C-alpha cells in the first residue's frame, strides 16, 4: 500500500518544471516535500492529484492510477480559497457531497470538524467575514472531512497565528495516529522536522536530497557543540583551539572540525570543577541541510 512516483517529468513548453522524480511512500506518516519557490513542489502535488497532466512517468496509489475513483484523497492547496458570499455550512456541505458523502454523514462530519477546530460559531456566517486564518481552517476541514486515506497539505501552517498553528498541529498528530498518508509541502523547516519522517528536497525540478530525515541528519558529521555552563569558559574553549560561534550568558555554540575535538573539550571541562548543564554534539539542522543543498 502506498504512493509511488516513477520517473515523473513535467514540461511547460520548453521549461522542465519537474525532472525524473521518483518517490515511494510505503508507510503512513508525514512525507515532506521541500524546495525553494519554483522548485516544482506544487507542480508535483498537482500531478499527483491529477489537476495537471504529467509529461511522462507513472503515478500510482496501491498500483492504481491516482484518480478520485481510485483514491479517497483530501487536498489543501497553497492558494487558499473559499466562496466569499456563501455560508460556511453551505460550502462545507457542497464539498462533502461532491466527495461522495451522504447528507447525514456530511452533517456529522461538519459538526465534528467545526467543533474540533473551534469554528462552531462561524457555521452560518458568510466566508468573507472570516479572518484569513479561519478561512484556512475551513480549507483544512474540506481536505479532511471525508476521512481520506491520502492527505496532501500545501503549506498548511503558513499564515496561521501560534494558537491556530498549535491546534492544527494537534489535529495532524491525530491524523498520524490514525495511520493516514500525509504529504506536506512547507517552507517552515521546524514544522517539517517536527512531523516528517521522510522527505524529498527539490531544486529547480531536480531531486537534490531524498530519504529518511533521521538517517540524512545522522549522515552529516557534528560541526557544532552546544554547551551550557554556570561559569564563563571562554578561556578553556580557546585553549582547546576552538572557535566560539555564539555565547549568550554562558550558553555556547562552539565550532568543531572533528567530533574528537569535542570529546577532548568535554574531558577538559570534566577536569575542572565547573558545573556543566548541557554538552551536546549538534547535527546540522534541516534548515542548514536545505540551504546547503539548494545553494542559497
Amino acid at each position: 500500500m502506498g504512493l509511488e512516483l516513477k520517473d515523473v517529468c513535467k514540461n511547460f513548453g520548453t521549461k522542465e518544471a519537474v525532472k525524473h522524480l521518483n518517490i515511494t511512500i510505503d508507510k503512513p506518516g508525514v512525507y515532506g516535500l521541500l524546495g525553494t519557490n519554483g522548485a516544482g513542489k506544487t507542480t508535483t502535488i498537482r500531478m499527483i492529484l491529477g489537476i495537471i497532466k504529467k509529461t511522462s512517468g507513472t503515478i500510482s496509489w496501491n498500483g492504481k492510477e491516482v484518480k478520485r475513483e481510485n483514491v479517497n484523497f483530501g487536498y489543501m492547496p497553497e492558494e487558499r480559497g473559499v466562496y466569499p458570499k456563501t455560508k460556511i455550512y453551505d460550502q462545507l456541505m457542497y464539498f462533502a457531497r461532491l466527495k461522495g458523502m451522504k447528507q447525514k454523514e456530511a452533517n456529522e462530519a461538519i459538526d465534528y470538524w467545526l467543533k474540533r477546530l473551534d469554528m462552531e460559531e462561524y457555521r452560518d456566517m458568510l466566508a468573507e467575514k472570516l479572518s484569513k486564518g479561519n478561512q484556512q481552517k475551513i480549507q483544512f476541514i474540506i481536505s479532511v472531512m471525508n476521512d481520506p486515506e491520502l492527505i496532501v497539505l500545501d503549506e498548511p501552517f503558513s499564515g496561521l497565528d501560534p494558537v491556530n498553528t498549535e491546534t492544527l498541529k494537534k489535529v495532524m498528530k491525530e491524523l498520524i495516529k490514525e495511520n493516514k498518508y500525509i504529504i506536506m509541502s512547507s517552507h517552515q523547516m521546524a514544522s517539517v522536522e517536527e512531523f516528517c519522517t521522510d522527505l524529498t528536497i527539490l531544486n529547480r525540478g531536480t531531486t537534490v536530497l531524498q530519504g529518511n530525515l533521521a538517517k540524512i541528519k545522522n549522515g552529516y558529521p557534528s560541526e557544532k557543540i552546544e554547551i551550557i555552563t554556570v561559569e564563563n569558559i571562554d578561556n578553556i574553549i580557546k585553549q582547546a583551539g576552538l572557535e566560539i560561534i555564539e555565547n549568550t550568558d554562558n550558553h555556547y555554540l562552539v565550532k568543531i572540525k572533528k567530533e574528537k575535538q569535542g570529546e577532548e573539550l568535554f574531558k577538559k571541562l570534566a577536569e575542572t570543577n565547573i558545573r556543566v548543564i548541557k554538552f551536546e554534539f549538534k547535527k546540522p539542522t534541516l534548515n542548514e541541510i536545505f540551504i546547503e543543498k539548494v545553494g542559497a
Partner: protein
Amino acid sequence: MKNLGIVTGFTIKEMLRRKSFIFSTLVLLIIIVLAFNIPNIMSMFGTDSLDEKVLVIDPENLFDGQVEYLNNMELGYTFEITTENLSQEQIKQKVENDIDACIKFTKNDNTVKMEYIVESASMNFGSVPQTLIASFTNLYSNVQISKLNITPEEIAAIEPQFDVELIETDENAAKGNVAIMMIISLVLFYAIFFCAQQVSVSITTEKTSKIIETLVTSTDSKTIVLGKTLGIGIVGLVQIILMIVVAGISAKFCMDPELLNSIFDLSSITPKLVILTLVYFCFGYALYSLGFALTGSTVSKPEDVQYANGPINFIAVIGFYLAYFSMMNPSSNMNQISGIVPISSPFSMPLRIMMGTATNSEIVTSLIVLIVTTILLAVIAIKVYSSTILNTGARLSLKDAIKMAKENK
C-alpha cells in the same frame, strides 16, 4: 457525472442568493407590470386617453359645426372646436400648454387654407399627419355636398364603397403578429445572451476566490462546466417563465381586453411554436453559455471578463440582427441562412416558425446543426477550462488557451 446534480443545485442556490440577480429580476417584473398599466397610469394623471388633443379653429364656420363627428371616428385625436378667431399669441399659448396641436381653417377665394400649428414638428417628421388631411378633406367634401340638396342615394352613388380584401398569391407568405414576434425575439435574446454571460462570471469568480483548485480535486471539469451551464440555464428559464406569468396576469387584470387583442394576436401562438421556441431557447442558451464558459476560462480577474467576452458578444449581436432581418424581410433568402447558422437560428427560427416560412426539413436541419455545434463547443470549452483553470495571471488569448488544451491532451 453523478455530481452534476450537486453542482447544478449549488449553482442555482448561488444565483438566487445574488443581490444583483434579485434586483434585476424585480426591476424587470416592475417594468412589465408598469408597461401593462400605462393606460391606467395615464388616467391617474388625468389623461383620459392616449389620443392627441387637437384644437380646431374654424372662425368662418366652414365645417358647419360638423367637426365634432370626427371624435367618433377613433382617429387617435380628440378634437376641440372653436369658431373664435384666436390670435397667434393665444394659439401659441394653447399649443405650449394643454393642446398638442392646433388646426386653423380660413377661406381665401376657392382655396381653404389649413394651418397645422405645433410646438415642434420633429415628432411628425416635419409634416402634417396624412390622417388629419384626409379626414378634414372628406368632412369638408361632405359638408359641401350636403349643401347641394343631393339625396342620400345620390351621395351613396357618388361616394365609393370599396369592399377591400387582401389576397396573397404566395401560399407560403409570412403570417404572424409583429408585436408578438418582437417580444419573442427580445425575450429570447435577453434570456439566451444575458443568462449565458453569467456562466463566464461564475467561472471567473471561482478563479478569483481561489476555490477552483479545491473544486477540481472534488469533481471533474466536465461536471463543473455542465453543472454551471445547467444551473444558470434553469434559473434563466424560471426567470423567463416568471416574466411571462407576470405579463399574463398584468395583461388580464390591468389591460382593456379590446386594446389587448388589437395589439397581440394570441391566435398566432400555437403549441408547436411554444415547444420549438423552448427547444431553441435550450440549445441556443447552451451554445452561448458554453461560448462564455470558454472565454471565462481564459481570464482570472472579474475586470477582464467583459473584454474576454467581447467576441461572443459580437457574435450574439450579429445573430440577433440576422433574426431581426428575417422578421422584417420574411421573403428574403437570408432567412434560410439565418435559420441554419447556429449563432442566429435560436433567435431566427421561432420567428420563422411563427411566420410559417420555415419548412419541417429546415427546422430539423437547423436543430441538427445547432445541436452538433453545441456539442463540439462543449468539448472545446471543457478542454480549455481543464487546461486553464490554474492560469491566474494575465488574460489568455483564445488561441493560447486552445494551444494549452491541445498540449494537455
